[in-house]
């Protein structure tokens, strides 16, 4: 099942080496019946989150409450750090960040309603930019337009939240 899932998740990408296969879910009463279901939930969550993230950036990274419902732990701290920095410099975002090529790296069903999973995805920033108050772009000249991320998602009392988001340092599948 894992192989099929990976192949489906990586459509459009050409990985140089296989990613870690999904770990089998232990028996019990899983939150998700299948890997496919878990991945779909992750995609839905990340889609909503990015929509809020784009709104946050468009508003000059002022209103963190837009994204806070989606984040916890290190991911929330990273977000705060970035928002504080950008808002203090008077930056704002134009265009939208998108994502694609989501695949499940692993998921762990605690069995009693708790769940955590890690997904890979490609973040695409080609259609977006950061402008300063004078309307000049402040992104790096060599900014990668697509970046592979490894994202941890936890189930917190029935609510899925992103707890970690880091660049994937393995094979670039984006």
């Amino acid at each position, binding site marked *: 099942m894992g192989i099929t899932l990976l192949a489906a998740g990586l459509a459009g990408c050409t990985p140089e080496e296989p990613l870690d296969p999904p770990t089998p879910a232990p028996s019990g009463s899983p939150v998700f019946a299948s890997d496919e279901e878990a991945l779909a939930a992750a995609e839905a969550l990340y889609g909503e989150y*990015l929509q809020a*993230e784009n709104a*946050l*950036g468009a508003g000059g*990274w002022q209103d963190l409450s837009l994204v806070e419902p989606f984040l916890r732990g*290190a*991911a929330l*701290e*990273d*977000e705060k*750090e*970035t*928002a504080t920095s*950008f808002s*203090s*410099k*008077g*930056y704002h*975002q134009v265009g939208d*960040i998108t994502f694609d090529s989501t695949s499940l790296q692993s998921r762990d069903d605690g069995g009693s309603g708790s769940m955590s999973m890690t997904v890979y995805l490609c*973040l695409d*920033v080609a259609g*977006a*930019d*950061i402008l*300063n*108050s*004078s309307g*000049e*772009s*402040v*992104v*790096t*000249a*060599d*900014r*990668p337009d697509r*970046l*592979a*991320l490894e994202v941890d998602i936890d189930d917190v009392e029935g609510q899925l939240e992103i707890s*970690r*988001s*880091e*660049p*994937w*340092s393995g094979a*670039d599948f984006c």
Partner: protein
Amino acid sequence: MVWRRLLLSLALLAPTALALSSGGCAPGDVLSGICTTGSIGDGTVDVGGVSHTPGSGGGGGSGTSGEGSTRVPAGPPVIWKCLEVTCSSDTPGAAPITLSDIASFRPVPGVQYMEPNGWMVPGLDANFYAATGQHVVTGTLLGQAASVRFTPVAFHWDYGDGQAATRPTNGATWAALGIPEFDPTPTSHVFLEEGEYTIRLTIDFAAEYRFAGSPFYPIAGRLPVPANDLHVSVDGAKTVLVEHDCVANPAGPGC
């Protein structure tokens, strides 16, 4: 963490400055280009950076985009994921920043001592003092000679009996102060209860920074550095009549 923060403040004063974020990448970081996966080659990790020319506007936002590159030693394949390099406009082709450059500035930890050594009498002053002082640590930053001058400015003593004190001085021996033993000193402490205690000292260092022949510039913040721990026992003292000198004859009557 404090150490890293100081390093960052330190670096920010340099003609070319470096700021590292906490490691994760928010989408905004990816958007700005300060997030990369890096690439490992010839013993170093190359990471893309972003450079800003410091703007004249007070509210920020007047920076211009540019290009920066930072190399950190590969070692284990640790990759700095988020990184921002801020360069001043007159930086003459700054050499790559290396992690080892930045990490080379560490103050020499202080050493604390006490009188009497290793034991104390309840209700009497025990004298604590620390050996430390201003010193300069040299190294290279951005490929050029750099020095950091550390000055101990505050001494936090945790006496292990629920009491703590911050002293502005490192203290001195009773002899050096020219006062009798068990007299109060600016760094002495009275233990009221018998028992075993661990005394911890943390010394705050102020730091100044000199780069490529410049004068020393102060660095914001202080760097707390733990000294050694002292383990002591507080016992009641009794005056007893003994025969001969107990040091010379510890087995003597009364000793």
